Each structure stands twice: as C-alpha cells, then as structure tokens.
C-alpha cells in the first residue's frame, strides 16, 4: 500500500499538513493457511490484532454457552492488560459444538456488556410487582434468605421451600443442594416444554428423550425445527447439514414453513394434532409391505407383551404379532389420514418410501411442536419412537439412541441421600404420570389450597412471561400470603423478577461455574462453564476464592451462592446440611467452588484423569484450559451390551419373556444367545403395549394411538373464524427470556406477527399487516398479521419469543421490551396495554440511542389458559382461537384476560386427570419406574409416608 502513496502526500506529511501514514502492525502469523483457531498451546499467550488493528496481548479461556440447553463450547478471548473480553467464539475442542455457534453464542458479549444489566443485589422497596428496588449487600440478602429457610427447616415446613428453574445449564448441582437441605423443592419448566415428548419416549423404551445420530443418518425425520431452534439446535444443525450434503434426506412435519422445513427434501404441512396418525399410517405401510427391520423387531420389540396382554389366546410368535398389530394399525389408512391431516394425496406413501429407503438409519426427533401442542401429544412422540424402532434404528449408528446413552451426569464430592419427603404442590396426586413437576399449574395449585410457598427461588426463570396464563402468576406472586420470600436469581431483569423481594444478579456464561452434558450426538461429553477472568487469574498463578470481583459489578454465580447460603442455614452443622458443603480436601472447612469441580474432575469423570495426564495437566487444569471432555466408550447399541455375570451375580432367565433377574430384580434380557442389558422398560424391550398406563388408569391409551387433540381439525371452523393457533415456534436468534439484553439479536428480530395463509386472510377480509384480535378461551390479544404462503391453511401461528414488557415504574431491558400498564376493566378482566414502544435511550452504550426498531411484539402467552394433559402433565400449548378483525378500541399489543375464566379452564382440564390415591396402585403417588429430576427414596412414593393435603 505504501507504494500507492503519492509524492504530494509525502510532501504534505513532511510539512505536517496531513497525518503520516501509520505502518500497520505485522504480527506473527500462525502459518500460511488461514486457520479457524490458534493452536491450543498458544491459547494462554496470544498476540493478535483487534478489529482496529491494535496489537493486543490476549488469552483464550473456554467456557460453555448458557443461552440455551445445548451447552455449546465458547472460547472467550480476553485482553490480559485491559481485562476485557475482546471476542467470544466457539471452542473447537468441544465435542458437541466443535468450535461453531449459532447467533446466540457471540451475542453473549452483548449480554455481558448490556448497559442495563443488574450489577448488584436489589431489594424490593415498595409493594410487590410495582418495580421499586434498592441496592442491598450480598451479606444482608444471604442472612435474610438463610434465616427464612432455616426457620422452615426447623419447624418441619420443608415443603414451603421451593427452587424453580427455567434454564438449568448444569448437571445436578442444585439437586444436590436441595437433597442436602432435605426438601422436595425442585420445580422446573418441563411441563411447558417437553413433558409429552418425554412421556411418549419413556413409555416406549424407558428413556425420556431421543438422541438422533444425525451425522450418520440416511433419513432425518423431524417433528421439530432443529435447523433453527430447540435442543440442540447448533450441534444438531451442523450434523444434519453434513448428513444432507452426504446424501441424507430430511423430512419435516410442520404446519409452518420453518427454516428447517425450508431445507427439507419433503415438507409435510400437517394439521396440528394429526401428526401421530400420519406416523402410524406410515408404520402400517412399512409393516404391510415388509419394509421394516424384522430381526430388530423380533429381538427388541416387546411383541410378547403385546400378545400376552391383548391376545392371550394367540400363539406367541412374532408372525402372529405382526398380523395382530397390522390389524390394529388398519384404522390408519393412508388416504383417510392424508385427508385428516390435510396433506396432498401420496404424502404418506412418500414418507413411507423415505423411511423404507433409509433402512435402519433413521434419526428422528420431536421437540416441542406437535407433542407439546396437543392434548395427547405424547402419543405423537410415542408413534415417532415406535416408527423409528420398527426400522431398526433404535440405538443404531445413524439411528436414534436413547438420550441416556449420550449424556453423562457426574457425581459431586458429596451426594446426599435421596429424601423421603413429597411436595404435593410440585407433584400433585392428580397427575401421577407427569413429566415432571407440574410447574405450569403452580399458581392454580396454590389457589386450590394445595400448599403455600414460604421461600421461593426463581432461577433464570420467568413464568410471568414464558408460561401460559401469566396473570395467574402475577396474582400469586403479588400475594405475600401465598409466596413468602421470593428470591430471583437472574442475570437480567425480567417480568418475574419485578415480583421478587430480592433480585440477585447471577453471571452469564463467562461469569459462572457449571458442568454440563447433553445428548447432542452419538457420544458422551462434559463441558465446563467457568468465570473466565477468575480462571485466567488462577492459571496465571493468582487463585481466588470468590467469583465476585472478577465479574461486572457484584455479579455472582449460583454455585458459590448455594455453598455460602447452605453454611448460613446450618452454621454449626446441626441440621446435617453443612457436611455436604465441607471441602473434600480440607475436612471441616467450607468447600470452594473450584474444589467442588476439581474433585469431580479427579474422581468422577471416566477417562478425564488419563486424558489430562496425556497433556501433562491435572484434570482441573485440563478442564479449565480445554473446557470439555469426551468420555471414552461407545454410545450406540448399548442395549446389546452383555450383562456381566459373576459368581455373586447369576441372573435367572424367564423362559417365556426372556427377562433375566437377580433376586427378583430385572437386570437384562436374553436375546441372540446372551443376556443383554436391553432397555429399562419392564420387558427390557421396546414396548407397544404399556402395562404402566393400563394399571394407572389409562387402559384406553395403553396402546399407541392418535387421540383427538383439543384442536382437532373437526373442532375448528375457519369459515367462522375458529382456528388453531400454533404459538410454540421459535426463532434462531432468540433466547426465551434473555434476548432483550442483546442488541444485535433484538435488531434482527423484534416482533411476532400472526402468520396466516392468504386464503384465510382473504376469507376474512384481512390484509397483510392488519390488526387482528385473537380470542382465546380466557381473553384475547391484538397483533398484526403476516400473510404468508409459508403456513398451511386452517392454522394461525405466532412465535412465542416476543412481547417482552416492562412497567413504567420499574427496570427492564429497553432494547427489547415495550412499556406497558395493567388495567382492571369494569368487566372484571385485566388488560395489558402498551404505553410506549421500544424507544432509543441514553446509556453508557451509544448504541442505546440508535435502536431503530419500535416493535417489541405481543405477549400472547398471557391470554392462554393452562390446558393440562392428563397423562404427561404437559401444558398443551395449541390454542383454539377465534380470529377477528381488530375493533376500534383495540390497540396493538393489547392482552385482555378474565381471571375467573382462567380458573374455570384449569378446573375443566383438571377433571380429565386420573388421580392417584392412597387406595389405588399400592398406595403409590406415582409409578416408581418413572423418573423424577429430584430423586426420591422408594418410601417417599407412598401416600402414607407423606399424607399431605
């Protein structure tokens, strides 16, 4: 470039008329070819340029993304002189994400630098929910919480202490704390997310989630949108794309043209609720045309149980089973199902051909979407699981394995015993087969008098906004008689934190310790999340015992918080709590968070010490610098693994079922000349008939089926404006409740118009961008429409990602929320009304004055009643709605809800439940074979142990 500088410029520079051209720094290159990342051995000492070409001394410290549940690796590059993050990239040594990220990974930098983040503990200063907060010290907050918890533990009111998590991002660390406290106080978000999907899979093969091996698949069958969202978007997407390039086919069932459907080889825009029928009709074709894996069915499908329970008179042969099962499936004929599902003729033929061609390499996934939308959605997941199994893809390379094989949950240094208490507010008897905690019903259960909450921890959890019927949450949270002390642990302001007494700032992914492992692909890994500045200081020989001080302001992390809080609850150890928080290295002293993970890495993760030794590091240093570890061993065909037989362990095989038992307990199943582990079902095989359902009052659903959804096509009437609203779809750029603090994400996506097919719009005289009023059973919301051919007729769709709000009296993330007020209407209804759109504001970030978008979307969830599936406990998200053009008094963003109706709808759905009772099922509250996130001792399941209310 210097050669292009003219003599005039040189001369002018001599006279000082123009600046001298600065020579650009010529840093040392890693090599001739461009590489994605610097070599690992340079990570702690880099000299690179920032984007302004200033040479900077930098270090790269790995951590784990916290912006969804995929647990992708991140690599934070920090300037070691300025102590600031220069960039956040992926971690190439992370087995799941392999150095790559979605938009939410780099957006972490926005979150860390968000000018409106909470930097110190805050205490409520006015009435609950009014938005008034004043700073408080961590000490004061901890003492207040500890006293409240201790008081309840001392007075046998353990059930009043509840921890409610939205985004976990960790493996068992809080469960450990709660077990140590002796409470059954773990609540989650699963019943608004994946309960039905889990239920369908659990009933089929004894694991609650699928783990597709997309990488090696021939057919990728998705009732999900894994090229843009869901668990585990980025790790899945990269493998799906690779498989596609290799020649794999993608089939997507979705009423909406998602980005995933847009990349599919076959898109089947099914009517919501009919997906199960489509899958069963496909299965029927496979069986009738003998294009399934006969050997796998013979060995691993529980056809014996099917015949024994349904056709005991029949000869127990696989041939007879196939005849019988085909007879059963004959109710799903391709033509009729295509009509029901609103598919073009030949669609099911096409799907069956795709499945048949893929052999036993069918990687399938269902997440949210149909399973979480429909009453009986778990049957859709079950049909999916079964279809996959009949192809022989279950547990196979390129197929779909149980999640449990692809995930590893390490022990901590001290694992308290499973408690024997049972919190009815979390595990109510009405839904004995729920997956899992009945979280979406909490306000209604409290209102029903099932229990009360004394100390309520909400942890990165925003039910007021994320859950259905948010106004019932606001009512509960506002009432100090129903919720005593509400502690919000959150990195950012949200609608639920407004209703907290203490708002405690917890770190983003570069500011906290956690361990995470997810079933992203055919492998098992653990990933380490760490506060990067603290880690860097330690690696530089400057260890510290407190994460605060390394983070912005007084931002802390939960792990240290729980250790400190537990000590304050039980300072002298009399409650038996403190011992679980004492260092394994320094007896009697408070464990540090680093010791907690050091111990785990040294003792509880297979292969890690060896791997670390290869790199001449100790396991803790290895995880601190590498960030992740892939466990040795195969994670496919685990069902075929042989049960090891030793002198003291001699299984007895039942001649009829093949089940191998030791002391009456099933340990495996005899298949193909050996005793193999099989699947953790009663039959140790993949089950079609579910004895569990039969016995727990659901005999009518003991077989796979396609029950009529609450939004079944027959219940809709587009002519009269009655539609199904699909409210679950997600955008690739959004982080549920934590996008509003990322300017770059909000800039890309900031509204959720209601999608409508052009014919439907025309039918009702609606034009693109017109305002419409969508009436639900308990109220309505007002939004504009997006007329699109990317949605099938008869359906409306609205992304749930938008509609964040804040009160004019309180704090919030102004990048992405509108200012609203709540108004009590004379009708007894409550109305949320927008006062102000997103507007530019002044802050330390000049960008805050440049936000050019005005919409923040519409908070549709508020207008949804709770609709509880009697089997899975899932909140069935799809809404039967009436579409109207907006009336003159309607304003964009309005949400109106009738609280009385919200109670009525809850009660009506509750009537479908088939409760457990002390008189039934051996006095059990819940089948012991169904998992629970917070483990219980066997006796806890008995009503007599905890009679409760």
């Amino acid at each position: 470039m210097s050669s292009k500088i003219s003599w005039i410029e040189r001369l002018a520079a001599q006279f000082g008329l123009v600046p001298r051209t600065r020579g650009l720094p010529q840093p040392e290159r890693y090599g001739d070819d461009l590489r994605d990342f610097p070599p690992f051995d340079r990570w702690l000492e880099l000299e690179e340029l920032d984007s302004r070409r200033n040479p900077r001394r930098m270090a790269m410290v790995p951590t784990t993304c916290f912006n969804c549940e995929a647990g992708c690796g991140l690599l934070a590059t920090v300037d070691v002189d300025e102590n600031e993050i220069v960039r956040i990239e992926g971690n190439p040594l992370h087995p799941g994400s392999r150095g790559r990220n979605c938009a939410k990974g780099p957006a972490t930098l926005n979150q860390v630098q968000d000018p409106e983040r909470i930097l110190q503990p805050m205490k409520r200063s006015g009435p609950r929910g009014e938005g008034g907060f004043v700073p408080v010290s961590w000490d004061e907050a901890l003492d207040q919480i500890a006293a409240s918890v201790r008081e309840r533990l001392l007075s046998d009111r353990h059930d009043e202490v509840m921890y409610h998590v939205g985004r976990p991002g960790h493996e068992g660390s809080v469960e450990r704390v709660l077990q140590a406290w002796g409470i059954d106080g773990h609540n989650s978000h699963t019943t608004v997310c994946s309960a039905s999907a889990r239920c369908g899979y659990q009933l089929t093969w004894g694991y609650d989630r699928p783990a597709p091996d997309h990488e090696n698949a021939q057919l990728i069958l998705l009732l999900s949108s894994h090229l843009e969202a869901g668990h585990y978007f980025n790790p899945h997407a990269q493998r799906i794309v690779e498989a596609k390039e290799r020649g794999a086919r993608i089939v997507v069932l979705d009423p909406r043209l998602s980005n995933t459907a847009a990349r599919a080889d076959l898109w089947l825009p099914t009517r919501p609720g009919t997906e199960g029928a489509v899958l069963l009709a496909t299965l029927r074709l496979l069986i009738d045309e003998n294009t399934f894996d006969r050997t796998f069915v013979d060995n691993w499908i529980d056809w014996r149980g099917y015949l024994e329970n349904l056709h005991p008179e029949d000869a127990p042969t696989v041939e007879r089973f196939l005849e019988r099962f085909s007879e059963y499936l004959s109710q799903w004929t391709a033509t009729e199902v295509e009509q029901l599902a609103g598919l073009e003729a030949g669609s099911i033929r096409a799907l069956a051909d795709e499945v048949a061609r893929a052999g036993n390499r069918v990687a399938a996934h269902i997440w949210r979407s149909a399973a979480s939308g429909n009453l009986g959605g778990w049957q859709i997941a079950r049909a999916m699981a079964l279809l996959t199994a009949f192809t022989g893809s279950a547990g196979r390379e390129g197929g779909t394995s149980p999640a449990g094989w692809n995930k590893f949950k390490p022990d901590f240094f001290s694992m308290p015993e499973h408690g024997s208490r049972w919190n009815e507010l979390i595990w109510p008897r009405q839904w004995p087969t729920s997956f899992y905690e009945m979280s979406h019903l909490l306000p209604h259960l409290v209102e029903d008098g099932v229990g009360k909450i004394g100390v309520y921890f909400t942890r990165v959890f925003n039910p007021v906004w994320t859950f259905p019927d948010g106004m019932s949450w606001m009512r509960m949270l506002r009432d100090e008689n129903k919720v005593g002390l509400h502690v919000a642990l959150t990195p950012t302001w949200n609608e639920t934190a407004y209703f907290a007494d203490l708002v405690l700032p917890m770190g983003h992914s570069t500011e906290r310790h956690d361990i995470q492992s997810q079933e992203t692909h055919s492998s098992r890994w653990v990933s380490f999340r760490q506060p990067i500045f603290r880690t860097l200081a330690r690696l530089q020989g400057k260890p510290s015992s407190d994460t605060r001080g390394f983070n912005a302001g007084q931002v802390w992390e939960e792990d240290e918080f729980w250790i400190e809080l537990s000590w304050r609850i039980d300072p002298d150890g009399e409650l038996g709590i403190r011992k679980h928080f004492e260092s394994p290295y320094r007896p009697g002293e408070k464990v540090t968070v680093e010791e907690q993970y050091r111990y785990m890495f040294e003792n509880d993760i297979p292969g890690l010490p060896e791997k670390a030794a290869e790199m001449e590091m100790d396991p803790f240093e290895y995880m601190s610098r590498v960030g992740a570890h892939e466990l040795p061993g195969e994670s496919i065909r685990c069902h075929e693994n042989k049960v090891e037989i030793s002198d003291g362990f001699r299984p007895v095989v039942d001649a009829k079922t093949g089940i191998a038992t030791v002391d009456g307990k099933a340990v495996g199943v005899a298949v193909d000349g050996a005793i193999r582990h099989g699947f953790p079902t009663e039959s140790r095989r993949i089950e079609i008939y579910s004895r569990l359902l039969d016995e727990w009052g659901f005999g009518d659903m003991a077989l796979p089926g396609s029950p009529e959804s609450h939004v079944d096509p027959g219940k809709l009437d587009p002519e009269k404006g009655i539609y199904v609203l699909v409210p679950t779809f997600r955008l690739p750029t959004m982080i549920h409740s934590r996008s509003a603090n990322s300017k770059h994400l909000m800039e890309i996506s900031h509204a959720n118009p209601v999608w409508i097919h052009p014919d439907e719009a025309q039918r009702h005289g609606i034009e693109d961008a017109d305002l419409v009023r969508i009436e639900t059973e308990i109220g309505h919301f007002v939004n504009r429409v997006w007329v699109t051919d990317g949605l099938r007729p008869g359906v409306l769709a609205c992304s749930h990602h938008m509609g964040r709000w804040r009160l004019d009296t309180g704090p919030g993330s102004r990048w992405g929320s509108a200012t609203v007020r709540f108004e009590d209407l004379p009708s007894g209804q409550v109305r949320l009304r927008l006062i102000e759109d997103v507007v530019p504001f002044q802050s330390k970030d000049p960008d805050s004055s440049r936000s050019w978008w005005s919409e923040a979307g519409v908070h549709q969830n508020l207008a949804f009643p709770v609709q509880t599936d009697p089997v899975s406990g899932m909140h069935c998200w799809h809404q039967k709605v009436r579409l109207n053009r907006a009336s003159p008094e309607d304003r964009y963003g309005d949400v109106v809800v009738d609280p009385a109706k919200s109670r009525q709808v809850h009660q009506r759905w509750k009537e479908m439940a088939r409760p457990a009772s002390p008189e039934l099922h051996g006095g059990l509250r819940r089948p012991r074979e169904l998992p629970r996130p917070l483990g219980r001792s066997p006796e806890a399941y008995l009503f007599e142990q905890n009679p409760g209310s």
Partner: protein
Amino acid sequence: MTSRSSPSYGFVIDNRRCIGCHACTVACKTEHSDPVGVNKTWVQYLEKGVHPRAERAFHVLRCNHCSQAPCVDMCPTASLTIREDAIVDFDPSRCIGCKACMQACPYDAIDIHPDTGTATKCNYCAHRVDVGREPACAVVCPADAIITGDLSDPESRISTLVAGQPTMVRKPEKGTGPKIHYIEGHREALDPLASHRSVRTLWGERPRDATDREEGQELSIPRGDPRRTYDIQQRHAVSWGAKVSSYLWTKSIAAGALMVPALLAPFERTSLVDSALSLGWSIALIFLALTGVLLVLDLKRPERFLWVLLRPQWGSWLVRGAYGITLYGAVATLGWWLQASSGSSTGALLLATAALLATFVAVYTGWLFGQAKGRDLWQSALSPIHLGFQAIVAGAAILLLLKPDELSDLRGLLAVALILELPFMLLEVFGKHSTQAAAIAARSMTVGIRGKWFYLGALAAGRILPVVLIVGTTTNEMRSGLAALLALAGIAIWEHLWVEAPQRLPLA
C-alpha cells in the same frame, strides 16, 4: 501448494448448507464492535411460491472483495485498497466520508459508521487474516456454509468448490470481478430488482430507506412472487443528496461564466467579451467557492477535506476534479486580479487557460459519476458532453441575468445552447438504456411527483419556455432575465432529478 506469495482470498457461500441462522451477522458485529444499524454482512431471506410449494432461501450478502473494485477506483484518498492478498481493505483513518464508495459499490456493501463518520465494510477480517486466522463469520458458521480460502490456489477447498460446482456471483455484468461465489444462489435474491422488498419482515421490520415507497403507498405483492422476508435497509440510497446536486449546479455556473466569454472571443467585439469577462471572473470565483463549500459540507468528515488534494488517489475522478477546480480557481483569481482585456495577449492567454480548465471542470463530473458503478443511469457516455453544454447554458444565463442590457446579445447564445443541450437531457431520460436499472431510474424521473418536476420544471419551464421567451417574442430585458432565470432553475431541477433517481433503486 503453490507459492503463497500472493493468495487471492474470496468466499464461497454454500447455500446447500446455509440455514439462515444469522450467526455470521452477530459474530461480525461483535468482532468489529459494530453499532446497531451497521451491517457488514447480513442474511437475506427470500420467499417465493404458493403453499405447499412455498420456498424460503437464505443468502449471505456482504462486500464481494471485487478484483476490479469500483469503490477502490473511486475512493479519493486510498482509504479503500486492494491488498496483495486480494482483500479489499479499508482504512478509516484516511476516509473523508465523501460516500463516493457507496455510489461506486454495486452491492450496497458499505455503511457510514455513526461514531466516526467514515465508511465501513467487510474487510475479510483483515486483522485476523494478518495473524493467519479466518474471518469471524466463517469460524462461527454452524453449518460451515461460509468457505474462505485462496482462490489462486487450485488445490484449495474454495477453488475446488468453485471449479466443481455451478456458482453464481452478484451482478457479473458490472465487470467488477466479485469474489463471493454462491452455490445454489437464487437470481431473485442476488438481483435486487428481481424480488419485492417489503419493510416488514418475518419477525419485525427493517429501517425504511429511500428506495421504499411512502408508508401506506406500498404496492401489494402478487401472491407467490419472490419477496424478501428478512432484509436490511439500503444504506447507499440517496447518500448524495441536495448538496451534491447543488454542487453540480454551482459548478456549471462557475465553469460557464468563463466558457461563455471564451466562446464569444473569436466572434464578438472585444468590448462585449471584456464586459462578459469582467463579470465572469467574479462569478467563477463566487460559484467555485460555493461549490467548494457544498462539497466540504457534504463530507461526513469535512475537516479532512484537504486530504482530497494532499492524500490523492489519482485514479479517482474526485481527485482529478478537485485539482481541476483548484487550478481553475487559481486562474480565475489571477484573471479577476489582473482584469486584463481579452484583446491583450495576457488577457487572451488567461482566458484560453481559464476556458480549458472551465471545460474540464464542467465535464469531469460526467466521468466522476461514471465511476459510480452502482448507478447505471450515470453510466452514460453522453454525460460529459451534456454537462459541457449545460455549463454554457448556465454561463450564458448567469451573465445575461446580471448584465441584461450590456450582454443582451448573449440571448442568442443562450437559446442555441439550450437547444443543443435539450437532446442530451432527453436522451438521458428517453434514450435506450442498456440495463434494467438505468431504464427504471430514467423512467422514475417521468412519473409521479418527480415526473411533474421533470416535465413542468426541467423541460417546460427550464428548457422550452426560455427558448420561446428569447426566440418567439419581442425581446426586452425582463424577458431575457426571466429566460435566464428559468434556464438556471431548469438546470438545478434536472441535476437534482438526475442525481437522485438512480439512488432510489435498491442495490442489494
């Protein structure tokens, strides 16, 4: 591996892989600490077709790192350069904010940074390349859809892809040699005129820009037509506004004020020439000063205006023009100072020099605008000649206006110049245009509110009426003055229309 002395970096965007996730956008923005509203890269969504055959496609758009980069040619201060490794790099410390690059770039790849007032664009993460690392977008891409590498190395992955797959580039007809190759690109996505661009997107909106119709005036999109459902604003649109069209006007006057006396000199009596000349020196100086002020004010970094002269990139017509204007200003100053008669040898020499420079000053803008490869309408070969005639019109008009009695003989010249100039203007609008963009831009000057300004203002009032006033009626001073005034107004209107019209078309 061939010698790595001079790699040629480019991108392949593999649409078999892209999933439209926007990770590249956010990685780019955080890597460069770019503000909201600035996009060095973005992911356009395109939808077309009727349910259930509806399709959605994604296209990552950004600087093409052209091998014949028009932005580099046009940049007056060499802020934009092509590095040895073929990256089109940008140095904000040299940028004066003239926005010429935004006119030159046919792909709308350049923004003005709100903090620095300097241009900004994808530079292939040159700061990373300098240490041997790939750009941030390529590293983050979950689908590995952004492939970097050396296009000059036939063995490289990127070369293999380009050689082995059908690929497309954006606007190959521009001859810019774009180095982003799209696998499975869609014409409707890569050609900005082949799809509809609504302000509302799938999940929000984009900022309105000057290529959009007024709110409420948007045309409805026929069902199934290709349509952008995620896009960003057109940053280039009307980045040259009234100050630039006014500069064309003041410059025409400044040039014409001395071109006219020079034209008269061989044919007219010395007294008349001198009368015109004495006024001409002053007018040239005053309007050159105005021209300079307008040019400086239009810079986003006006305090750096001298860099056009002192840090020149000789290939840029901005630089050549600035030197022309400067020299012309110097001669005009000398002429005004000496006030020598055109009859004297000094005066004749000065006038001849001034006339040559004035002609250059008048016409160079045609080549300058021609350097703006993004603007098809400005690619007219006639434009310099047109500007020359226009300057004569302007010169005659201003002299006539200011000395209606002494210089009333200029009426004839004004009428002739107007008659000669008119066909050029008509050809610019109604002539055959070689590209769709030029034709659309030209047509946009003849319809709607702009059509009224064109027909009533530029054509009727600015061209025909002055001729009628001069030729068709008995002359008097008032009518001459009116004709001159109308002719000057006509030029101003025309320049404004001509400068604005192509800038109202989308480039990306």
